């Protein structure tokens, strides 16, 4: 018909991933994201230095001890690799999920806030495709954030403490290479632990046009759930709180591994991802975009 029609485009299916790539590049080049990762990287440094100063006289705390403080902290002086487990145990209750809450809460609401959402949609990004790109990016952030903690901890641990064979919680000894493998596995499990919260944050993000409100709500929910999980009278609902099995990752340090809590954790995360992912989709695909 007209001139423009002659430029027939036959889009390749691969082009659809351009949005995800753009989303990842935009997120990880953003100053705010880098600041969050910087804070996460600093936690193992603080813990490592504190433990080092605390035990400067060379005395090693009693084996398996530690009534107070994060899990594994007593073992760090024997083996720097334990700093990885300690740092993950220290950041999982709050720092890591808070960072995820910021990224997930801002995902849609932040774009609505600046008005860029309407231009993405008329590009057209497609609502389902945009939501998937946002969720995938948040999941990548969960993984990157966890790895930042783990790698920072491993580096600090190697610099300040000896490395070598390590003793599991069950008292058996495993080689350093296997210990490293378990550390990686634990990092992956910790990252997966955050995917339920990520879906919840994404859903909250579709409810409002204010990025700040969505971030605050998500982080507020996180704190509420963490508190509810501590109240003994609520034990009936606690198995359904997304954070209930988070610290089960420590069971990967048993010999043999206790899978029970780990499996429950992953099931719960899958459930949250399915429920809140669907809710986010239902909400976002039917929503009037007037911002």
């Amino acid at each position, binding site marked *: *018909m*007209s*001139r*423009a*029609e002659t*430029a027939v*485009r036959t*889009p390749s299916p691969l*082009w*659809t991933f*351009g*949005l995800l*790539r*753009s989303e990842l590049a*935009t997120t990880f080049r*953003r*100053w705010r994201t880098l600041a969050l990762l910087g804070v996460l990287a600093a936690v193992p440094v603080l813990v490592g230095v504190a433990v080092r100063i605390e035990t400067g006289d060379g005395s090693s705390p009693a084996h398996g001890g530690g009534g107070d403080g994060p899990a594994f902290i007593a073992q760090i002086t024997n083996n720097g690799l334990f700093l990885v487990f300690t740092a993950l145990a220290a950041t999982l209750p709050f720092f890591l999920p808070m960072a995820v809450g910021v990224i997930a809460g801002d995902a849609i609401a932040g774009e609505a806030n*600046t*008005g*860029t959402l*309407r*231009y*993405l*949609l*008329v*590009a*057209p*990004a*497609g609502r389902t*495709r*945009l939501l998937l790109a946002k969720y995938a990016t948040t999941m990548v952030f969960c993984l990157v954030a966890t790895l930042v903690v783990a790698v920072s901890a491993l580096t600090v641990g190697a610099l300040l403490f000896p490395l070598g064979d390590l003793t599991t919680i069950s008292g058996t000894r495993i080689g350093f290479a296997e210990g490293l493998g378990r550390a990686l596995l634990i990092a992956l499990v910790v990252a997966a632990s955050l995917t339920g919260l990520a879906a919840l944050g994404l859903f909250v993000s579709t409810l409002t046009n204010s990025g700040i409100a969505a971030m605050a709500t998500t982080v507020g929910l996180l704190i509420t759930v963490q508190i509810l999980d501590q109240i003994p009278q609520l034990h009936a609902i606690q198995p359904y709180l997304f954070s209930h099995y988070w610290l089960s990752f420590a069971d990967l340090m048993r010999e043999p591994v206790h899978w029970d809590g780990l499996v429950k954790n992953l099931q719960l995360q899958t459930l949250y991802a399915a429920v809140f992912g669907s809710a986010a989709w239902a909400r976002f695909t*039917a929503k*009037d*975009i*007037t911002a």
Partner: protein
Amino acid sequence: MDEGNDGVIRTRGLTKRYRGGQLAVDGLDLTVPAGSVFGFLGPNGSGKTTTIRMLMGLIEPTSGTARVLGHAMPRSSRAVLPRVGALIEGPALYGYLTGRDNLLRYDAADSTADPRTRRARVAAALDRVGLTAAAGKKAKAYSLGMKQRLGLAAALLQPRRLLVLDEPTNGLDPQGMREIRSLIRELACDGTTVFLSSHLLDEIEQVCTHAAVMTQGRLVTQGAVAELAAGARGRLVVTTPDTGEAARVLKEQGVGDLVVGEDRVTGDPPERDLAEVNAALVTAGVRVRGFGLERASLEDAFVALTGEGFDVAG
């Protein structure tokens, strides 16, 4: 593609009531012919942006239908929108990205946009709006005019069948307005249909071939600008030092609504041949310096249609 007879945009009974209960658009029947520069005119709050949001699939109509490029919206968004460029309620940019990176991102959002030509198309769009020199600057450092032009560049990343521009000159200085208008004329020359909303009458009159007029969510009229203006008849203007005598003769000749000025008399032209009117003036000894019809403006048409000035509904 059947938009040839259907119109590039065609709405039937299009209605939007916002959740707050506000009836923003009420039974709109709009037809935008292919190849036109279509002015969508109305005071602030008359429902222009709401209509555009429905056309672009951003909001769901309460009732009625909208077809764009022959397809139903919002259902066919994925098929229609790659061929439509849009500027809606002003530009929106990622302040922390450069102008170029903003365009790269918007282009990546379109899954029908070829990534191999992305950089070249972005560069061409930047060039077209005169932003090549500022392409590497962060968008938050852009002036309003630059942001507006970057928004236009985003609408020009691909060859488009239709451009939807919602008040594209809003907030610009006169120089910026002229630049945008000449860009719109250029684009129209390339055969792109342009749908341009504005609350400025003279803007529509300067660039549009067709126009529709909205007030309070309802369509008052639509058609070719020339016909709309012709609908409001022009004024007969006689320039003469003998205004009193001229007025008497013109009244005899059937000219109504006479207005006598310092050195001219104006009135509604009569049905009869204007040559006879002129002859009668000369015969009566009126010294005629000038005699002619003053073309009606779109503003006259608007006033005639609504019986009110234009900038009323705040």
